[in-house]
């Protein structure tokens, strides 16, 4: 499915924060988790994840440290901060509201199945 770009961009923050709330992770693993969660429906261009991560880091929602991967390469790991968790909770409220609103007006999924 070709998802609207704005929608992808808007969902990036809560997704990344939610994945990091599960535990510390790094760029590639985060992307794997996204495609796993969306069953391949939500597709990001790989590189674009990193400016998002750096923005969240600058805003203080996530922190970063350099560690070592299993294969011995230097790898940048991210973890969610307290402020990031608060931001995630807020985002969750907002997305629930949007979701509930849309559910109220849209017919059940079975009727629109292509």
């Amino acid at each position, binding site marked *: 499915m070709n998802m609207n770009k704005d929608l992808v961009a808007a969902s990036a923050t809560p997704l990344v924060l939610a994945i990091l709330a599960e535990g510390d992770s790094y*760029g590639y693993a985060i992307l794997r988790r996204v495609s796993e969660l969306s069953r391949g429906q939500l597709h990001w261009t790989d*590189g*674009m994840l990193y*400016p998002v991560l*750096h923005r969240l880091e*600058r805003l203080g929602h996530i922190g970063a440290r350099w560690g070592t991967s299993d294969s011995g390469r230097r790898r*940048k790991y991210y973890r969610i901060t307290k402020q990031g968790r608060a931001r995630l909770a807020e985002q969750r409220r907002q997305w629930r509201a949007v979701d509930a609103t849309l559910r109220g007006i849209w017919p059940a999924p079975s009727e629109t199945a292509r």
Partner: protein
Amino acid sequence: MGALEFGGAVEQEIAQWRAYLRHRQAIHAVDVEELEDHLRSQIASLVASGLAADEAFLVAVRRMGDLDGLSREFAVEHAERLWKQLVMVPGSAGAPGRAAYKEAVVVLGLACLAALAVKVPELFGRRLLGAGAAFYARNASLFVFPLLTGYFAWKRHLDARSRRWLIAPFLAAAIFANVFPFAPGGATEGLTALHVPIALWLAVGVAYAGGGWRLSARRMDFVRFSGECGIYYVLIALGGGVLTAFTLMMFEAIGLKVEWLAQGWLLPCGAAGAVLVAAWLVEAKQGVIENMAPVLTRVFTPLFTVLLLAFLATMAWTRSGINVARHLLIGFDLLLALVLGLLLYAASARDPEAPPDTFDGLQVLLVVSALIVDVVALAAVVARISEFGFSANKVAALGENVILLVNLGWSAWLYARFLRGDGSFAALERWQTAYLPVHAVWAGLVVVVFPPWFGYV
């Protein structure tokens, strides 16, 4: 990093991809590392699912996305990176970082040494603010330039023979600046103070070129260095002025007069140390930040051309001759030196292969109008020189004027040939760089010959 995970061919492609990414200004080395980790993880995962390594590389690069778009996203997130930053000591460890750190320590050490050297003669009763003022004026460059030369000799790994040769000019300068029985306040003493630095700057240049002084390109590098160093020095001096003003103001607020500190220590020591710091900054910023001197040249060449043309037109219109005042010759020397500087820095930033453009025409117009103005002034001076008689100042100014006139005259000729398509720009550049030592040799002559010739007055 650098572990050969995927075999030579793919590793080579990854290296190429990395190099390509490194050229993006908005993407820093650590980001490249992070992205490469991603790329490698992706390749490994694709290989694990059955793809050949080279195919996996192609897929992984494709998934990474269009690099222009990526670089734009990085630029949006890190807007500050589009402003080139001069990082003196890189944060990340590694060999280049250690070398930069070592250089910083060496330069700051030399700067402190220069600052202290300024105070040494005071131990022997030569007061900077008193009887020793003339001594300091004659020897000013000797406190700093030997250390600057030493810095370049160290940095360029100059061989022992060149190092020994470079001591000679400084020794000679120290002798000729101090053995002559100058009459107090005489003209020859002032000439010595003015010309010692000009002559010694050549020695700095030889050290700067690091054994390549015979090459025109290295000399041009030294010209670029001189311009940038001057600009940085002025900037540092402005900062120093602010620091001094605050020092005076704040201590006065608690009822202390610290003029002695400002005049006896801050200014002279700061002025000496700042030369080394400025030189170091220019060395460090080379290739990181745009050169400033050519930019200023672009701004001021048209303005000075307009000034000279307006001056010539007014003179022709009103038929007024040049009033031969006392400082006239020196003024016109400065004018020619300035025009030469504009020419030199425009040339230093120009691509020698490029065809002539409008700016080149403007340069020729500037040089020719400066030559006409100077010739008119010289004619006025020479016509009345019998009335003045020869003094040390006049001969020095006249000599320098002739040297500049020859330089600019031949430059104008070469430039005109280049504009007509008969010659190359490289010829003009070669002429300029070949002529550089003439100024130093003349300055040396003034220092060595003039005082005895004019009886030390």
